[in-house]
Structures are given as C-alpha cells and as structure tokens.
C-alpha cells in the first residue's frame, strides 16, 4: 500500500486513526501493521494489502 493511504484509512470498528509500523518497504509498504489503540486491534499488512477486517470476522 501507498503510505498516503494512511490519510484516509481508519479502524473499521471505531473509525479512529491508526498507527503504522513498517516492517518491509520498497516503493510502497509491503509488510507491516496498522494499530488501533482505542480498540486494541492490529490490522496486518501483507503483500502490500492491509487486512482491515476485524479479528472476529476474519
């Protein structure tokens, strides 16, 4: 995913902002985590695709 996507990405539960932790980056972010501190949920980024489905629905 492009880093600029973070401007519009929100936690699907509370619609709050997310904290990004990058593990692997080429031009775009390949691997990492988006964290919602309010809901205490981690949304993983894998192969450049953020998985924004809440754990209970995965």
């Amino acid at each position, binding site marked *: 995913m*492009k880093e600029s996507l973070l*401007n519009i*990405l*929100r936690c699907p539960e509370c619609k709050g902002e997310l904290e990004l932790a990058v593990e692997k980056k080429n031009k775009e972010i390949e691997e990492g985590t988006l964290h919602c501190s309010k809901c205490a949920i981690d*949304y993983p980024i894998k192969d450049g695709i953020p998985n*924004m489905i809440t754990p209970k629905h995965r």
Partner: protein
Amino acid sequence: MLKKGQKWYKIEDVAEKYEDSRFTGGGKILDKKERETLLSLVDPKDKKILDIATGTGRFAELLSENGAEVIGLDASREMLLQSEIGSVQGDALSLPFKDESFDVSISMRFLHLLDPSDIDDFISEVGRVTKEKFVFESLHPLSLRMLYQWALPQGSRLYSNSFLKEIFHEVSVVKKVKSHERFIIPYGIYQSLPLDLTEEIMELDEKTAEDQEWLASTIYWEVFFE
C-alpha cells in the same frame, strides 16, 4: 456478511481463472457494454473513487485508466492479489475509511450477495465515506434471470425496484435516486453465446430494455448523497 459468496470467491483457483472463464466469447461483448454503461454513469476524471467488492479489479482499472484515483475494497484477499489497483481487504458493511474520503463509490455485481436486512446499513456506510454519489447494480427478479440463477455457484438474491427504492429513501443521507434498466437477457446466458450472435441479440436487447423496464434483468442505480 458475504456469507453465500465468500467461500466460493476465496478459492484460489476460482480467483485465478475468474477473468478467463467470464470474459470469453459472448462475455467479451457483454464486458464492453458493462464498461460503457459504467462510464456513462461515472465521469472518472480527477475523481477519488472507491470500488466496493472490486474483485480482480476489472472496473477499478477502467476508472483508473480514465483518470480516477481508485481504491479497490474486497473481502477476498485471493481476488485482490489479482488486481493491479491499490487494494484494501475489508468488510463492505464497516468500511475502514474516514468520512467523505471519496467523491464517488461504485459496486458492480455485489448487491445480490447482501442480506436484505443489511442493505440500509450498507447504503448508510457508503454514504458516510462518499461525497457525491454511489453507482451500483441490482438483479431484477421479474426477468429471465429467474430461469437460470439456480445454477450460480455463489448464489444470488434478487431485489425488486420498488423494494430497493423504499429502502434507499429511508436512509437519511440519501438525497435522490435514479434507476437505469438494462439487459433483458441475463449475463450468464450472454457469456455462453458465440461472439457474432451476441452482438445482434444485444442490440435488440438494449432497445427493448429501455421501453420494457419490467423485463430488464439488471438495474443500474445512482444514489446521490446529501
């Protein structure tokens, strides 16, 4: 959500062969017509567009090629891996975006996979992230589609125009609704026809669908938001 279709679309083999199986022979002309229809309803230039249930990104790519900045959302990671467009795996009923992130949202071949009780929440949620309008299609029950839909592996739900209009008008963010009737002959039948035959039948089909809306198998909707 996506209970009926979810498993089927997640099979990797289905995702990889999806385009090939659907867009050969008569399916090619249908694909062209669908693209034309979408571009007649959405002016993509310089727009931020969300494609909900983007699948392998067929319509997302079309809009991107025509000047839009597109994000594709789908519940199936296997489908998204086939797409060339910026992708987000997510649930259509709780969109992971901030309010008014997009000018326009689209969703093709998706509404028939939703439960009737989820449609109002879905429209509200799309309205939350979308400034201008939502373009999508529904499959009409009083049509030839009824004759063959039992064969679809992913299952589908058919909603009448009046049923949907009633729901849309109850959603507070909806300002105006427009419907456009298309395709008397359902997609699946076109996909199995030889190429030359399809062109002739489709020409006849287009003329008739405009005059006889109750015969149309597919309805394209424009829902405008406050």
